[in-house]
């Protein structure tokens, strides 16, 4: 009886692992490695890589610059509407990407809510690189915000209070105490958001389209190459798998680096 149960567990484990790994393995086995590398050098792939890196970098800069203070605010201050705001952050996580795409179009499209105002000032958002950036921010920022709020909340409030009584204003307290102590968690959230943003597909294809060299990111290029150059599609897939694995490993390793905080500031002397 007991042996039978152990066997059942072993079979279930093998099935689960096999199901998860087989498609990834197939990606690397389908095409010879040499072909994979040469396909990565093709125009289509190189264009998509540039678009992906550019838009991801800009989107990520915005997520960090705006998301970090927002997360600190939500983690340390009590104000009316705070719960609602925290709830709203989770919304993009459960929203179908297609809905995110159509919603962004409804807001920023030429006939959207803000579209008229934007075009009056000479801005077009939909089907431009700006749209790619906005789509990535929309779907990826919750990954950073959730982790950043948790990281700031785990900083002992007494440490922030101590900094204030030692003459540090709110900004210096944030910069010298909250930020360095939350840094390992922020780095994890940042990595997850970057990974999610790099793989963004649904909202981007609806809101920004798939124009080669302009709005066609790596995931969109996979879709675009499916019926033209299947090997190239496979090569991009393999590349994205490698990036994902690298990020996953980094996230797993980060907590053990927490003593070597990347946000160490030289202590400043107050006069």
């Amino acid at each position, binding site marked *: 009886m007991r042996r039978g149960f152990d066997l059942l567990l072993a079979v279930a484990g093998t099935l689960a692992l096999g199901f998860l790994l087989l498609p990834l393995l197939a990606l690397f086995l389908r095409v010879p490695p040499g072909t994979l590398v040469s396909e990565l050098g093709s125009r289509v792939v190189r264009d998509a890589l540039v678009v992906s890196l550019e838009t991801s970098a800009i989107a990520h800069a915005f997520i960090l610059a705006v998301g970090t203070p927002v997360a600190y605010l939500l983690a340390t201050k009590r104000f009316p509407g705070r719960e609602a705001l925290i709830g709203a952050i989770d919304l993009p996580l459960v929203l179908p990407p297609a809905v995110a795409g159509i919603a962004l179009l409804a807001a920023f499209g030429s006939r959207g809510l803000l579209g008229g105002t934007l075009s009056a000032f000479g801005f077009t958002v939909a089907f431009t690189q700006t749209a790619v950036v906005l789509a990535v921010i929309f779907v990826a920022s919750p990954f950073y915000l959730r982790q950043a709020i948790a990281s700031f909340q785990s900083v002992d409030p007494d440490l922030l209070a101590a*900094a204030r009584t030692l003459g540090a204003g709110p900004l210096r307290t944030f910069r010298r*105490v909250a930020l360095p*102590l939350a840094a390992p968690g922020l780095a994890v959230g940042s990595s997850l958001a970057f990974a999610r943003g790099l793989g963004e597909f649904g909202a981007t294809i609806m809101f920004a389209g798939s124009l080669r060299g302009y709005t066609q990111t790596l995931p969109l290029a996979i879709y675009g190459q499916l019926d033209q150059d299947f090997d190239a599609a496979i090569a991009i897939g393999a590349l994205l798998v490698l990036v994902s694995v690298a990020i996953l490993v980094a996230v797993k390793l980060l907590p053990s680096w927490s003593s070597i905080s990347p946000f160490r500031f030289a202590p400043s002397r*107050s006069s």
Partner: protein
Amino acid sequence: MELDLTVPLRSFALELSLETGAETLALVGPSGAGKTTLLRAIAGLVRPSRGRISAGGETWFDSEAGIDLPPEERSVGLVFQDYALFPHLSVEENVRFGARGPVEDALERLGIGALAGTRPRELSGGERQRVALARAFAREPKVLLLDEPLAALDAPMRTGVRSYLRGLLRELGLPTLLVTHDYADAVALAGRVGVLVDGRLVQLGTPKELLTAPATTFVADLVGGNLLFGRAERREDGLTEVELDDGTRVLSTDEGSGDVALLVYPWEITLAHTAGDDSSRNHVHGTVEELVALGNRVRVRVGPLTAEVTAASAERLGLRVGEPVVASFKATGARVLGSR
């Protein structure tokens, strides 16, 4: 420092009026009495609903004048109960964080110069306390605030740190307000002691004043007295007779009537095998329930009383747990504290 403030807490309000000079003042009270809240209000971390806080000629808070300086503009050195050292900074960086000048003096005076490059997590409890004190001191504050300065230390360390801290506070010469739940700590460190209960200061005075004239039963219990409860009645001979809840009758020279508490200090109780022919009017028969040696003294629990006798006396009487004994005290040693 002058305080007059009200801070609403969950089930009561902290209401306190206090004036301190260049001294060490200790506030004692049970946990939840509002002690930490008071320190936080002075430091500007908690906003009082009304009142005034001023120190060294500066007004930090005045609800009527609309003054409420943020913590960074109040010159306080607040030492948190668990020290709140910055874990990502070295000892020296911690001390330098709020320092107004070079930190070498602060490190030297607290004897932590050798630990300058160490991170807080590698320090012992006593060392952490010194770093926290150095950090507060380096800020050159007008007032030093200590929250339960000895509570985070292991019992064996406390006695040593207590006397070290007493010397240090005297040497630093800063007006100091400390809060503690331990009366012994308060007496050891401060010249004046205030007793805080449910947000109110029930008594403020020297340890001797608290001992000889406790304002309430809580203060009497705090300073180590035995408390007996019963009904008092005036006798014709001028004494007050108190019938305790267990039926024992006790005489006191104090006046009182109705439900009262009687205070008897442990050192005013003598122990014997039989009720002796002495001047004591009160005799409580019981068995020895506990013997605790405290240096050259022994604390003996007999029924509702705790007596303190010399170790030599305890030896001579051959006191043993479970054996019958008579505890005696004079009518002058039984103080009536009024209603319970």
